[in-house]
């Protein structure tokens, strides 16, 4: 078991290293001169050359790469071209806002998806099931940013109920800013949970132990909760892990729509500057999140299902 964990940790590091290396190489190929971006459009050639020397852009690529790796080990992925500050702390500062929105968004997906999944499995192949399942597909087919704008228009602008965007802080008044983006994400993402849960519950319902429980005279509701839902939730763990891991990527668009001051909107601000260090910082964060959550999912499985063993 400890051998398995050690092995996994090594592969996690290799994966993150690979992701960073690929991103770094792509960044190295940028046709525009990073020294020129940092120095500004009006800088003299002498200034640009001085900046290039300062940041080491004039050195061969292997020297730059080794230095990059060395710096990454010291949690430094470089200085943002656009914001002129160390990129990783810039991204970390915004992690709080992104984390808050990410958790609220995934929670909204669960709050919408799980009940609908149970409902459609229970009433499967009825008109209600067809209607709700269809609604879920339609919801998941909407571009998140478009549905967000639609909600801003209808709820915030026309009805004037919630703020059109921005960040309300962590205080008691902050939640109202969280509702629209979270609901947007929740409705467009609920289908993944709803459909998965429906399929999984229908599978479990067909199994012997459920029939036995019914035969023993347990009520419909008792069977549903005690035997079906508990067993049918397993695949949801994987989905939740994958979903949480990919939130950072999904939030890039959502934060932009709602003007949310998180990592995503920070990255979008720097698109035009091809801000390689900032992109490296966000990529590092996202890839660490993915490998750690994948590992966590496997550990949860290990704890939940005694039949699985990793040796």
């Amino acid at each position, binding site marked *: 078991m400890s051998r398995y964990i050690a092995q996994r940790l090594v*592969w996690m590091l*290799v*994966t*993150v290293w*690979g*992701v960073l290396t*690929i*991103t770094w190489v*792509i*960044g190295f*190929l*940028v*046709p525009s001169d990073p020294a020129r971006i940092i120095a500004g459009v009006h800088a003299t050639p002498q200034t640009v050359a001085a900046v290039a020397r300062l940041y080491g852009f004039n050195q061969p690529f292997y020297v730059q790469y080794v230095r990059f790796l060395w710096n990454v080990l010291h949690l430094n992925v470089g200085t943002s071209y656009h914001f002129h500050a160390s990129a990783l702390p810039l991204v970390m500062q915004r992690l709080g806002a992104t984390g808050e929105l990410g958790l609220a968004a995934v929670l909204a997906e669960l709050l919408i998806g799980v009940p609908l999944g149970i409902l459609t499995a229970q009433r499967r192949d009825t008109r209600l099931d067809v209607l709700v399942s269809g609604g879920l*597909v*339609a919801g*998941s*087919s*909407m*571009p*998140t*940013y*478009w*549905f967000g*704008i*639609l909600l*801003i*228009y209808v709820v915030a*602008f026309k009805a004037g109920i919630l703020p059109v965007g921005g960040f309300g802080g962590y205080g008691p008044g902050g939640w109202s800013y969280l509702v629209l983006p979270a609901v947007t994400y929740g409705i467009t993402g609920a289908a993944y949970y709803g459909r998965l849960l429906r399929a999984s519950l229908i599978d479990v319902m067909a199994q012997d132990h459920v029939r036995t429980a019914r035969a023993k005279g347990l009520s419909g509701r008792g069977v549903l909760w005690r035997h079906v839902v508990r067993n049918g939730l397993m695949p949801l763990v994987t989905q939740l892990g994958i979903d949480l891991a*990919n939130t*950072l*990527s*999904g939030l*890039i*668009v959502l934060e*932009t729509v709602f003007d949310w001051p998180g990592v995503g909107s920070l*990255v*979008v601000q720097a*698109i*035009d500057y*091809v801000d390689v260090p900032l*992109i490296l910082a*966000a*990529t590092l964060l*996202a*890839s660490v999140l*993915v*490998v750690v959550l994948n590992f966590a999912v496997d550990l949860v499985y290990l704890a939940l299902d005694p039949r699985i063993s990793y040796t």
Partner: protein
Amino acid sequence: MLAPSVDEVVRASDVEPRGPSTLVRFVRQPRTWLAGGFVLLLILVALGAPLVSPKNPDFPYPNGLSMIGAPLPPLSAGFPLGTDSLGRDVLSRLIWGSRLALEVGVGSSAVALVGGTLLGMVAGYFKGAVDVAIMRWVDMMLAFPFVLFVIFVAAVFGSSVPIILVAIGILQMAPIARLARAKTLEIVAMAYVEAATASGASRARILARHAVPNLVTTVLPYALLQVGTNITLESALSYLGAGPPPPTPDWGAMVNEGQQGLTTTPWLFFFPGLCIMLTVVAFNLLADSWLTAIRATR
């Protein structure tokens, strides 16, 4: 008596499941026709854009703006879906925009389907070090923040259609490769492949004749599902301003432009998003009925 050929042995041992084939079951579902019809219509509109489009999509019509220079609302004379802030015809831009959506949506999926199936097949068939190397690569691809990666690649190499298409396709290979690998392991373990190996068929022949057709059936619905994701992703890229440069008619960019005048001209953001949604629904339904057909065949 002549020894039976490899293919005869294989055909005899490869017992077809009873009942109608996957394709028949796929075609029999009403939603296949509904979604398939929509996709077909969209392809025709995209191909025939110069014929179908009522106006030039990029031309700012002087009569496309009101007296005070505001965009015309839908159902205006000559502009059925209204005009944008430059006086361009929204309907014509939507029609031309379908080209980009289909190009990137289907193109990226094709890249992912071919590349992913090959990677998965090679990993599952040769196992060992090849398998480990390929699956590590797949893990890396899955650890990339998708949207960020595509934005970055577009920013570095230029936001042209082929580059966006390939960038999305490369990342989408990863889930397909995983699926193809699992399926290949399953196929290789089957009796008929053993029979083919025993009668001296080469590895390449086994892969080409027995693994590929079986794999494509399995992987196709996921590739279809990806078409929808790819279209949404490309439009999101354009929405964020990292897509093909203006004035290219692009549904995502149109939503962005529409958002600028959200309170006064809401139709500008609404229609392009609706187009994306309907297109994605159609591809998702096709994928869904193919999956249903596969499950029913087993």
